[in-house]
Structures are given as structure tokens and as C-alpha cells.
């Protein structure tokens, strides 16, 4: 099991997330890897992207300065564009949509995920993150909460843990967890390993995961470079 570069890790996760996003689905994408996932979508797959600051039908980032549209940003404060059939709404209506149960997937990062699917992703004590933004709403409202995260922190600390030790975003909210080595599903409060990358063994995964999980009978290995 060779050491992956930061870019390799991010690309691998983004590709796997792209594969998991449902065709025709309504999705909300967090900052970072989630946004990157869009670049790896199969051309046959169509997503309808919502941004919580008030738009459904988000288009790609403008290619040139001239393509920049006034008063149009996503929740990460990046300029975006329109798609045909897009529409705008106020923030209460936007989160009404997020909590409606109609949104198919949200992809967000994690500081820690517990074995019951608790998520901590908004604050590291003393690190100056002031406020949860829309994350707490998204993890409660959306059907498939897909967490996209590096398996182990850069300092070697486990991120997939028995209990979260940093401030919680939501309890028992994660449905799918994607790392550069593994995909877990949370079903009835149980954490289940459903896929792993071809460059690691089940024992390798066990060694980097403090959370208790079971291995699916039909666990699959996905081919990686």
C-alpha cells in the first residue's frame, strides 16, 4: 500500500463520489472534493445542483471574466452560471427545500465520523470556525448524506472513530462514507464496508479505522492505479 499524494487522494474520492451520485438527482455539493466530483461525472449522467443561498439548476463556473454573471454565486462564494430551467428563491425557501425530503444527495467533508453515523465537520475547538452554515440542515434534510473524506488525518489520527470528540454536526445522519480506500454504508445505525480500493486489504482498512463496522458479504474491490 503505497503513500498517495494529496491530489491522488482527492481525485480518487471525487471519482467514487461521481459514480455514486444518482442520475437525474437533486444534489447539494459542499466546498472542495464535492465540487470536484462534478468533473468526473459520466457524460450520460445529469445532475440538478442546488445551492443553499437560493438557486436550483446551478451551472458550471464561468470560463472567462466575460462569462461572469452579476449577483450569482454559490454557497462557497464562487461565481457560477445558469442552466435552462434554473430558478431563484429566498433562504427560507431554500432550506425548506433542503428539509423537504425531496433532495437526493448532499456531499460534504468530515473532521470525524462515528460508527453510528454521527458527523463532525464544522468546528475544531479554537480553530476559528464560527458557525455551522448550512451543513447541519443538509445532513438532516437530504436523503443520501455522502461524506467525502480522507481516511486518516495527515497527522495520522483516525477520522473514522467510535465516538466523535469534536463538535457534532448531526447525530446518526451519515448514509454513505467515501474515502480514498473505502465506501461504507450506514444502515439501521450499523456501519458496513461495501467497497474498498484494490490497493488495500480488509486488514489494512481495519488498521486505519477505529470505528466498529461489519464487512458486507458482497464487499467489492474497485480497481485503482
Amino acid at each position, binding site marked *: 500500500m503505497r503513500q498517495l499524494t494529496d491530489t491522488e487522494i482527492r481525485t480518487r474520492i471525487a471519482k467514487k463520489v461521481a459514480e455514486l451520485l444518482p442520475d437525474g438527482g437533486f444534489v447539494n455539493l459542499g466546498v472542495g472534493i464535492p465540487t470536484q466530483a462534478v468533473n468526473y461525472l459520466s457524460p450520460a449522467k445529469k445532475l440538478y445542483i442546488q445551492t443553499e*443561498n437560493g438557486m436550483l439548476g446551478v451551472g458550471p463556473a464561468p470560463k472567462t471574466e466575460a462569462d461572469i454573471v452579476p449577483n450569482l454565486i*454559490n454557497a462557497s462564494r464562487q461565481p457560477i452560471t445558469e442552466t435552462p430551467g434554473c430558478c431563484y428563491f429566498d*433562504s427560507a425557501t431554500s432550506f425548506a427545500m433542503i428539509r423537504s425530503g425531496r433532495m437526493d444527495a448532499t456531499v460534504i467533508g468530515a473532521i470525524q465520523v462515528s460508527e453510528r453515523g454521527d458527523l463532525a465537520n464544522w468546528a475544531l475547538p479554537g480553530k*476559528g470556525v464560527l*458557525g*455551522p452554515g448550512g451543513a447541519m440542515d443538509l445532513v438532516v434534510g437530504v436523503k443520501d448524506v455522502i461524506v467525502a473524506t480522507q481516511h486518516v488525518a495527515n497527522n495520522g489520527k483516525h477520522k473514522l472513530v467510535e465516538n466523535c470528540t469534536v463538535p457534532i454536526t448531526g447525530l446518526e445522519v451519515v448514509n454513505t462514507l467515501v474515502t480514498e480506500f473505502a465506501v461504507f454504508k450506514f444502515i439501521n445505525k450499523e456501519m458496513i464496508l461495501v467497497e474498498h480500493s484494490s490497493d488495500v486489504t480488509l486488514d489494512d482498512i481495519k488498521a486505519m479505522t477505529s470505528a466498529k463496522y461489519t464487512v458486507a458479504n458482497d464487499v467489492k474491490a474497485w480497481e485503482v492505479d
Partner: protein
Amino acid sequence: MAKILSPEEAVKLISSDSSIMIGGFGNIGNPKKMIDLIADTELKNLTIIANDLGTPNVGLGRLVRNRQIKQAIGSYFTYNTEAAELYFEGKLNLKMMPQGTFAESIRAGGCGIGGFYTRVGVGSDVTEGAETKEINGRKYVFVEPLKADFAILRARKADRLGNLVYERTARNFNPIMATAAKFTIVEVDEIVEPGTLSPEEIVTPFIYVDVIVPVGRGE
């Protein structure tokens, strides 16, 4: 029917110790001119209700730098590192809410609802101390309505009555804040005649608007 005032006249209506809702999300849809004018005054002890606090010394960040803010209530202040420093030094009172709960509580404040229950934030620090209720076997937290003395907002166009339309994601918190304040002041790009805006596309009916402040597109 709304009054039309200059920004300089409008800012004189605001008083110290008042609570003010400010529209905008990430420097889009903010009443930039009015915020700058408030920063130029001696107004102090303000309770600012806004999604964020801009960036250091920009937008609402100017009110942070000037120490005009007693408390800020919102959802994501991270972009203002100065606010973070003051907060950790105990010099700025910040109340952080999940963004959807923040929006919904403003809506509740504007429509005479006494409060509501949500599952958002259950078990997290931001709902600590909130009353809880079990509904259909799941835990919910009670959220109180948010109201303010003033709302200072930004819209694309107003008609002379005060009906408003917004532009793209600059809509954000503006329409709900318009409903939740005792007195609503709106900065606009442009003022048009009543009947010019389609009755189907007006987002904020003029009943919610007290003062319109024309400042010109992009200002």
C-alpha cells in the same frame, strides 16, 4: 406606501442599542451603501442579525472593526477573522445558528408564529439548552422567532409603492428580513412606476417596506 429617502437621510433613522437585520450572503445582496454610512456614524451597541459579518473591515466587517456591535446573530462568521479573534478574546458576543434554522426563525418572526420545532442541530452545541420535544419518535428542538427593530436590505428594483424584486442569488435573506422588522429600509438599484413590475413576479409586497433608498446599480 414607502418613503423615498437619500442614504444620508435614511441612516439618521437608526438609533444606538437597536437590533438590525442586514440582508446578504457573502457580500452579495448586501445594502453596501447603508452599511458604510452606519460605519461612519457613532451608532453603537447594535445587535446585528445577518448570515455573516463580511470580511475584515469590509461590509459588516467595518462595524466589527469599529466595535459598534454588541451581539451578532447569524450562521457563518468564519470569513471575518477579526470577528473570530474578538470572539475568542471574549470581546464580541456571537450567536451561531444552523443557516436554515436561522432563516426559518426570521420567517417565523415575520409571520406571527410563536416558534417551531426542527430536527436540525439536535445533539450539537448550537442547540444546547434548547427545549426539546419528541415527535413521532424523533427528537426535535424548539426555535424561537427572530425579530428586529430595523431591517436594512438590498433589492434590484422597487416601484414607488415599495414593491420589490431581487436579482439572482442576491435575493437570499432579504425577502424574509423585510417581514420581520418593525421598520424596513431598502437600498435599490432603481425605482420604477407602480404597474411596471409584473404582479406575478413581485417578491416582497410593499406592505413590508417603509423606506426606499435609491443608490444606483452596482453601488
